[in-house]
């Protein structure tokens, strides 16, 4: 187990290195932060001077090496725009994003698992068909449109919730619902099909013929065996929500990492882009590792060496 963890850690390191390299190349190939930063009256000499100050006059490979050397010490450099350390900016915005993502995740699990299970119990029933229609809608409606519709309905028409900004729990409701919709739909469908798979198996028939209460059959025997793919998709969706919160954050003026990162990309603020990508990747990798460990708890047949 210890050896396995070490290997995973090593793999994670390679992955992060790869991600930073790709981001580095893409962002440096297109556009120029200095051009976006200076007044139109600036001359070539002004641009050269700023380039030198920001260290952008060095060759690309050298810039990357310097970046990695500093990054290892947790120093991602100072934001070109904000004049603050990039990592500090990302960490400042992180709580808002985590709050939103966790809320959306809890919401989607609380809705999708019961809905999926209920749908699987009576395939073809009204409940099943309603659930699946909802899932289809949730997966195909654009987040952007959903967000605006929520604002118009719950914010403007009914005035139940504040429209934008971060604050109390009431501010969280609409952004969390918007962000949760897609994953709720995906998880509902997967829970249903995964349950249907298991419910066909022999051991379920055995359990039923033993005279077990249907409730117990479903939750204890069927659900537990259907859980592995469900956990996988929940974790994947969590990662996607973490990085996909950009649109939701923009619609609801939510002060999260997504908005910071997107503006950084527009402005070619390299240190902030790198720091944001690094932190998000760390979460992704950590979640994946966590899921792999959870597998062993659920299914004793799975072990890592």
């Amino acid at each position, binding site marked *: 187990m210890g050896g396995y963890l070490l290997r995973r850690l090593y793999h994670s390191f390679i992955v992060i290195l790869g991600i930073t390299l790709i981001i580095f190349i893409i962002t440096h190939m297109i556009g120029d932060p200095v051009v976006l930063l200076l007044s139109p*009256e*600036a001359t070539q000499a002004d641009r050269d001077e700023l380039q030198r100050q920001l260290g952008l006059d060095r060759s690309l490979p050298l810039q990357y090496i310097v970046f990695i050397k500093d990054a290892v010490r947790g120093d991602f450099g100072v934001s070109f725009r904000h004049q603050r350390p990039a990592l500090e900016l990302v960490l400042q915005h992180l709580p808002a994003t985590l709050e939103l993502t966790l809320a959306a995740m809890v919401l989607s699990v609380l809705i999708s698992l019961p809905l999926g299970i209920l749908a699987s119990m009576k395939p073809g029933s009204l409940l099943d068909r309603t659930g699946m229609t909802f899932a289809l809608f949730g997966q195909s409606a654009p987040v952007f449109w959903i967000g605006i519709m929520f604002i*118009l309905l719950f914010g403007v028409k009914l005035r139940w919730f504040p429209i934008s900004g971060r604050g109390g729990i009431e501010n969280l409701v609409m952004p969390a619902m918007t962000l949760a919709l897609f994953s709720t739909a995906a998880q509902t469908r997967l829970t249903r099909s995964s349950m249907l798979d298991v419910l066909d198996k022999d051991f379920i028939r055995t359990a039923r013929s033993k005279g077990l209460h249907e409730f117990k059959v479903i939750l204890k025997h069927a659900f537990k065996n259907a859980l592995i793919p469900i956990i996988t998709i929940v974790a994947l969706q969590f990662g996607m929500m973490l990085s996909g919160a950009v649109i939701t954050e923009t619609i609801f003026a939510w002060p999260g990492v997504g908005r910071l990162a997107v503006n950084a990309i527009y402005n070619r603020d390299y240190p902030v882009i790198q720091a944001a990508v690094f932190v998000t990747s760390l979460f992704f990798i950590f979640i994946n590792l966590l899921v792999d460990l959870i597998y062993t708890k659920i299914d004793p047949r799975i072990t890592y060496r």
Partner: protein
Amino acid sequence: MKRFFMVFFILCFLIPSVSLGAPKGKLIIAQAVDLTSLDPARHHTQGEFNYDNAVFDRLYLFDVQGNSVPRLAVSHRIVNDTTWEFKLRKGVKFHNGDPFTAADVKFTIERILDPKTKAPFAANFRHIKEVNIIDDYTLQMVTEKPDPILIKRFAAGATTSILPSKYIKEKGEDPFLRHPIGTGPFQFVEWVRNDRLVLEAYEGYWAGSPLVKTVVIRPIPEDATRIAELQTGGVDIAVNIPPFLVNQVKAMPGVEVQSVPSGRVIFLYLNTLAPGPLQDKRVRQALNYAVDKKSIIEKILMGSGFQMAINLTPYHFGYDPSLQPYPYDPEKAKKLLAEAGHRDLKLVFNTPSGRYIMDKQVSEAIAGMFEKVGVKIDFKVREWGDYTKDLVTKKLVDIGFIGWGNVNYDADGTFFVYFIKDAAFSYYEDPEMKSWIIEARHALDEKKRKDLYTKISKKVFEEAPLVFLYQQQDHWGVSKKVKNFQARGDENFYLYRVGVEK
């Protein structure tokens, strides 16, 4: 005229005394973008300048028509061609009680010019060679060459907001940037990045206490969200209402729309530096005749625009009202193209998307109009950062959609930037025109400058180095609870005289 000014001044003193009483109420403003820092010298975008306008003051400001009005300066005298003397306002105090003196002005300007500051607009002030303190309230500035628009540069430059030299020298830059103080009508309270900026009335403001107690400026990037907040009273003022939503906002009870011609003009670049058909004046004129500006403004911009003869607005010093826009005349365009001998003309058309109001849609329409007169178009939608890099490095191919907000309110800020090859955004140069532009740039005689700009304007129109399109119209959504708010063409807002009813 003199009497008018007397009355005006008396009125100015009367107004504050009428509305005497402690500032009260809370004003919430939604703008599209957030600040990046609290340091005026490093500011770059309008969202940041609005904070500068509230917390700080500068030597001069523009009024709504574009005339410079003394603020922390009270008068100026031109000592010789390159030396200006400014008398400064007495009795002005920073938020911590320190008096404002000439030392603060010197400090502010020298800080902008210090390369370590990395001030984006340093280039606009680099020609100020010396700032000399004569006494606490008298200051001289020496410029490299005569600069007739020096005062306009201060009026336009929120980045020249005067900083407290004593405070910064004693406490250091970092503490100042965490809790900035200025001489402006509002004091800094709190800033949560990408969420809110909170300011509070400074009752000791030199021109009298502001009317509103608390100001909150919120960045809300999405137009629909900003408007929904305005509708439900979550915000009192919303900037940048897009033209296609204006009618919806007008229909809301308790909200009015203030529409104002913008200082921003929209046009197409033509790369006349690279060899090719665009170096032929007839081709450039043909492209100008080929564009139906009227229907673009009516159908795509829902009426929010004004046709332009060249790329200067009536706000700008040097504007020539006698010039009329190129009429829509596709037949003439075809004829000019035939004369020029370009039968199978094929040009690349670059456009940003989402940077200016309806930019991509307008570009698509124009590309269609060009095709109609027989010019084949290779249409390219460009990411902004990628596009501007091409522009500045002179790599633009053929045609490009762009907007230009010349906030100096002077023709220099447009002609110098667009019609002199060495400037960042220029794709055109003509030796004679260049000599006029340089001459006007350094002539202190207003009459002479005006005549030069009239000459230049006529030549710009005739030479058609750009495809001239329109001047934008800006729309602001303002709650009826807000009093005395006036939308401006330069997108600034000044909240000192603004009140709010609850």
